[in-house]
């Protein structure tokens, strides 16, 4: 049995699965239920001046029968007094001393406000703090959440203020509603952050009701943008984790968040540099007990690969993630159709003919049966045919040996520069 214990900037937990700050971590009752189910840690729903919420609050995007492919919310931070939350944090930590409890915090961008809340929260024994610079709705209209998280100077300053008062590790939770998340991650590091977490939710409108013309969700006929999460955002989150993990200027651990729905997703985030993961939508969709499958799956995966500790996964794929200019222009794959598996639905032919490179021919075999065949010399290896193919194993993407050694775009541009410089002395 592998060692699943996780350590994020000194915050220990029995496994890398934390509940993200959100409705599932609103109260002691919920967090205790989560710990009982097996979650390794919980980031308490964001504390700050208690707010007023609206009804309704959530909406989901279903796609082709997949329920909750994406999830949208317009709920704000805690609506309960700080004292109530602190009492429940204290009780929960006492009951589960080995589980991590992190307090998510959001206050106005003022030094005294940060000092006050950090001190009061640390008094009850939290293991760490997460500064919420990410919520894109409601609080942002009041200058908090993503409104301050989009401004590197404010991220740095507020992190610094929190660190001035903090004795526990400070995690800065970043908003994805920005062009380059490394800019704010670097600001957090400059402010003294012990770790960063990403991503918070993405600005979204789940839909419009085409009969009533109301937004989805709506509050008495009026809507406002919300925050989008769930499986649909996973690729966006994974890229942002990878971009931060490979940046030499972001040298703090990362807590990965964004559409993680199973143990495989968690492994992906850890390989791409996350020291642990935070999960919300999957728990809201399926309940706290989904963590059992996550723990079992992760454990089996590590055992099968003979990896003794989950920490050994962290960052293993980061060296494989780079800029486009560093990719090998001579690497070549082509599609091959296995006619004994293919059902001749022709989806690959149509996709290739209409929207790609017109290299899949509809032919007849010796018996006059229809077959599909790829003209490999015209195939650019785009993968589209294998993506749209409904039959597992009908199309393989196979590597072809190149007649040339690897050459990247950056290599090519450098050599063309030399040609200009040397006017012929380089030529073949």
């Amino acid at each position, binding site marked *: 049995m592998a060692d699943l214990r996780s350590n994020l900037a000194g915050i220990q937990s029995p496994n890398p699965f934390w509940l993200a700050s959100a409705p599932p971590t609103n109260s002691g009752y919920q967090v205790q239920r989560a710990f009982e189910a097996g979650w390794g840690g919980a980031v308490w729903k964001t504390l700050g001046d208690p707010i007023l919420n609206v009804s309704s609050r959530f909406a989901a995007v279903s796609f082709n029968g997949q329920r909750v492919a994406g999830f949208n919310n317009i709920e704000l931070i805690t609506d309960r007094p700080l004292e109530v939350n602190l009492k429940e944090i204290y009780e929960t930590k006492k009951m589960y001393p080995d589980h991590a409890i992190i307090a998510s915090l959001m206050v106005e961008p003022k030094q005294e406000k940060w000092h006050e809340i950090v001190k009061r929260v640390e008094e009850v024994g939290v293991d760490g703090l997460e500064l919420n610079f990410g919520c894109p709705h409601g609080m942002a209209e009041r200058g908090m959440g993503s409104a301050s998280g989009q401004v590197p100077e404010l991220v740095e300053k507020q992190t610094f203020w929190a660190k001035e008062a903090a004795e526990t590790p400070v995690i800065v939770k970043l908003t994805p509603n920005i062009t380059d998340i490394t800019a704010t991650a670097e600001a957090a590091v400059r402010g003294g952050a012990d770790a960063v977490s990403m991503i918070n939710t993405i600005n979204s409108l789940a839909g419009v009701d085409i009969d009533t013309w109301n937004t989805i969700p709506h509050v008495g006929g009026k809507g406002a943008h919300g925050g989008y999460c769930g499986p649909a955002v996973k690729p966006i989150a994974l890229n942002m984790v990878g971009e931060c993990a490979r940046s030499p200027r972001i040298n703090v651990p990362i807590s990965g968040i964004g559409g993680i729905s199973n143990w495989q997703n968690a492994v992906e985030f850890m390989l791409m540099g996350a020291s642990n993961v935070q999960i919300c939508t999957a728990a809201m969709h399926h309940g706290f007990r989904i963590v059992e499958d996550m723990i079992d799956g992760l454990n089996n995966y590590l055992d099968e690969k003979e990896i003794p500790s989950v920490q050994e996964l962290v960052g293993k794929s980061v060296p494989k993630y780079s800029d486009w200019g560093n990719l090998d222009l001579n690497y070549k794959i082509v599609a091959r159709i296995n006619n004994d598996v293919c059902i001749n639905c022709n989806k690959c032919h149509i996709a290739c003919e209409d929207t790609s490179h017109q290299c899949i021919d509809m032919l007849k075999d010796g018996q006059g049966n229809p077959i599909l065949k790829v003209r490999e010399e015209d195939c650019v290896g785009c993968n589209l045919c294998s993506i749209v193919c409904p039959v597992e194993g009908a199309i393989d993407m196979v590597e072809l040996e190149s007649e040339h050694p690897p*050459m990247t775009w950056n290599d090519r541009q450098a050599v063309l520069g030399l040609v200009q410089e040397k006017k012929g002395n380089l030529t073949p």
Partner: protein
Amino acid sequence: MSDYQEYLLEREKIDHWLDKGYMITDVTENLSGAELTLKKPENDLEKLLIKTADGRKYFSNLLFQKKEELESR
């Protein structure tokens, strides 16, 4: 003519001039592709417009390999 056939023709033209001892002395890239200037001492200039992606990759590979060879000496 498929892109591949067009590439083979372009590759043939590049090889033809290089086999005759010409050298690529300039590459100008524009909206149509890459214009190669080939030169041999005491001979006229030759110009080739290489349009296909594989053709542009091909002459780049030749130049890159040459550079690698020179650097490894």
